[in-house]
């Protein structure tokens, strides 16, 4: 071991440069990969919506002046249900992947030390059928429950609710959430919602920097929000072949019924949920490409750097290696020595890099809305860098191992 460590201190520049490179690459890669993971969350998480290409969503239907009366919205929804080829139609206050209108709130479970969660709220009619959600417990809202008339938006009102399994597990860790009450906010007069059903998944529609935990925290309330200027209509087509015809009919019906009172200069958007989802996630996807590209190039540059420096370092010591070979060291010994040396240098770089990665993360957390780097990234990053270091050193180490003993007798 000593014969490896000592020269490192005698010729400091080369090992120093490797240490610095590894440390910096480690810090960049850890933080970039953490950002990448966060951006991936909405892309890879299940949104719970069945057959996204048969679901047609109409939004940006804002009225000039006073919000649409709920009776008028209900009437349009009924009309949409009558279109041939439509199996289910909804009118709602907000919709998954439609980020212009959002309802969110802090909701609480029961008891003194109730669990809290930041959840999205979707208020609308027949949403379970139209979205194609999968009920895993309980039931859908009854016709009576759907007929409720809210005084305001409805987010503060009490009544029944359907929540996602993730939210149920969070608020009621004991198990069955059915029949329990979710409080919408911690005020004394906050709304209280009794859980009547649990769905497998339903994605929230407000994305922050870090949604790893709360991406699937959503609630459904029945009824139509009143005093809400941005309603969303959605219809489900019976088959893929009928989508185009249904979309045309939906467009015509909404334009006929609400068109004259819509805001001017901004047209409603009609598209399938699949396309809506694609557009909503496009920015995250772009960021994923960027971050993965950067991480890859960072690692490539580091590998190239280690390789270049180690080959020079080996070449410099050709004579010493020859002498060692002449004194009885075998090819394997030389190979392992060079590899061990790389392990030590890269290891030192990783230690420095971990500290740096953490410091950078703290600084970013202080200045931007970022969350703490999970500790799992550090060992994972370390293993990755060690593996890359060994990969980079393989070719120079093999060259060193091939130095014949006779070199010791040459030159000078």
């Amino acid at each position, binding site marked *: 071991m000593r014969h490896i460590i000592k020269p490192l201190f005698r010729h400091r520049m080369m090992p120093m440069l490797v240490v610095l490179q590894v440390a910096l690459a480690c810090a960049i890669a850890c933080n970039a990969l953490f950002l990448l993971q966060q951006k991936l969350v909405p892309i890879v998480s299940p949104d719970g919506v069945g057959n996204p290409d048969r679901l047609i969503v109409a939004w940006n239907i804002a009225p000039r002046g006073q*919000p649409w009366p709920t009776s008028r919205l209900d009437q349009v929804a009924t009309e949409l249900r009558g279109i041939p080829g439509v199996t289910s139609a909804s009118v709602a206050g907000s919709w998954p992947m439609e980020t212009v209108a959002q309802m969110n709130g802090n909701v609480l479970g029961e008891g003194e030390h109730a669990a809290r969660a930041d959840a999205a709220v979707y208020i609308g009619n027949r949403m379970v059928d139209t979205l194609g959600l999968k009920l895993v417990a309980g039931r859908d809202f009854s016709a009576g429950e759907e007929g409720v008339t809210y005084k305001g938006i409805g987010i503060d009102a009490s009544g029944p609710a359907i929540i996602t399994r993730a939210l149920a597990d969070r608020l009621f860790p004991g198990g069955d959430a059915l029949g329990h009450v979710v409080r919408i906010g911690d005020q004394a007069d906050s709304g209280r919602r009794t859980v009547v059903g649990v769905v497998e998944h339903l994605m929230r529609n407000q994305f922050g920097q870090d949604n790893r935990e709360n991406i699937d925290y959503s609630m459904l309330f029945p009824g139509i929000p009143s005093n809400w200027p941005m309603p969303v209509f959605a219809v489900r087509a019976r088959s893929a072949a009928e989508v185009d015809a249904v979309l045309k009919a939906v467009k015509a019906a909404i334009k006929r019924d609400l068109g004259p009172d819509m805001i001017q200069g901004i047209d409603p958007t009609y598209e399938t949920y699949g396309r809506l989802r694609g557009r909503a996630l496009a920015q995250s996807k772009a960021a994923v490409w960027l971050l993965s590209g950067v991480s890859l190039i*960072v690692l490539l540059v580091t590998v190239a750097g280690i390789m270049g420096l180690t080959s020079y370092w080996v070449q410099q010591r050709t004579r010493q290696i020859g002498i060692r070979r002449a004194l009885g060291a075998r090819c394997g010994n030389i190979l392992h020595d060079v590899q061990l040396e790389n392990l030590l240098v890269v290891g030192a770089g990783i230690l420095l890099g971990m500290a740096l990665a953490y410091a950078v993360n703290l600084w970013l957390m202080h200045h931007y809305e970022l969350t703490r780097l999970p500790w799992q990234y550090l060992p994972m990053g370390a293993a990755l860098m060690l593996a890359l270091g060994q990969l980079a050193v393989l070719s120079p180490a093999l060259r060193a191992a091939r130095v014949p003993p006779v070199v010791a007798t040459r030159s000078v």
Partner: protein
Amino acid sequence: MVCFERSEAFKQRSGWMFDYYLRLALRRCRQNLPMVGLLVLTMAIGIASCMTALTIFQALSGAPLPGVSPYLHVATMDAREAVDKDNPDYKRPDSLLKLADAKALVDAHRAAQQVAVAQSLAQLGNPDGGKSLQAYGLMAYGPALQTFGVPLRYGRPWTEAEQSSNAPVMVIDTHVAQKLFGTDDAVGRSVTLGQRSFRVIGVIAPWAPRMQIFNLGQNAGGVTGQDENFFVPAQASLDAGVGPFTSGECGKDAPVISFQSATVAQCRWMETWVRLDTRAQADAYDRFLAGYANAQHDAGRFAYPPHATLYGTQAWMTLNHVVPDDVHLNLILAGGFLLLCLINVAGLLAARFLRRQGDVAIRRALGASRRDVFVQHLVETGLLGLVGGVLALPLTWLGLWIVRMQPVSYADAARFSPGVFAMLFALSVAVGLLVGILPAWRVCRQPPALQIKIA
């Protein structure tokens, strides 16, 4: 005189040496092309990624209205007149005021210039109804053009008398003038807005703040500023049935937001902007604002303690996250990446130089000073940096093109400009010299005798 001659001779010698070093560097670069290629490519990628992030950052930083916005401030206060259960603690400063409050602040004339504005999206038509277009514009109470420094092409802004008599006058930009009348100089013509006909009294050049500054509370991710195609006195516009695009809450049991309504007497929808040239003026205005707001609260109009605060344009934009964090994060990422590339290239250069210690030893033995060796190697790395910069040019262009293709809100900002080119040139030379310093210093440090021995 002697001194002059010496320096002249020195200049000549150094010029000649520079030329020699340059030829030497070119010759040496040809010796190991793959290695040189790797060095140059690494530098080019580092420079290009940094330049791409820097270009976007630069386009989105700086004053939204150069020369004007550094002095502009927006008034914020909790002016809600009813108790709001969902947001009792006024988490985010709110700039929207009722017209009555906005008028009171403007009419107080406590600042150098002041105006209350709200954005409108309205249909403009020519008198015979033959041509029309949807346009964004500002409804204003006060001298909007003067306060925001909007350059007039023809005509004049509206007078205080016209404003107080609710005269139907407006200012349009050349884009609207061309669309409706086929000419830039539309002063004196009539434009139909809502139910009334407005007389054009001024024409401005197309004008937009570089970034979003108006109604940031309701801004859904917009970064670059909106073209304001017309300016119209607020009351005259309301009289014609044209209201703001959005208005904040309109009292108890009313929606949190409504669109294009002209019945806004009960709504908060105007922002008050004031121009304050000095710190002392800003402090004085802050006190005036707090005094006004507290008086309203004491009189029972405002339901909550008003927390009246004056925000400078930049602080207001930062508070409302106009420029997305991603822009800053990408710049930090690119900066870190460039640093990594620099260390990488410095290491590879050191290896490259030290491999040729023999050449250096001979030059040193023949009388070259350390300084000469140092400069010779710096010339070589500077040259490599320059080549890297040349290579980075198309790469930066490619990077910006890729960003423009992305569905990001700041895609418009990713444009190549001469400033970017100058920055790239400076950066690449700096990079070339910076990476060369350590290896060049290392190679000239050893005494000649030792170098010959090593060789």
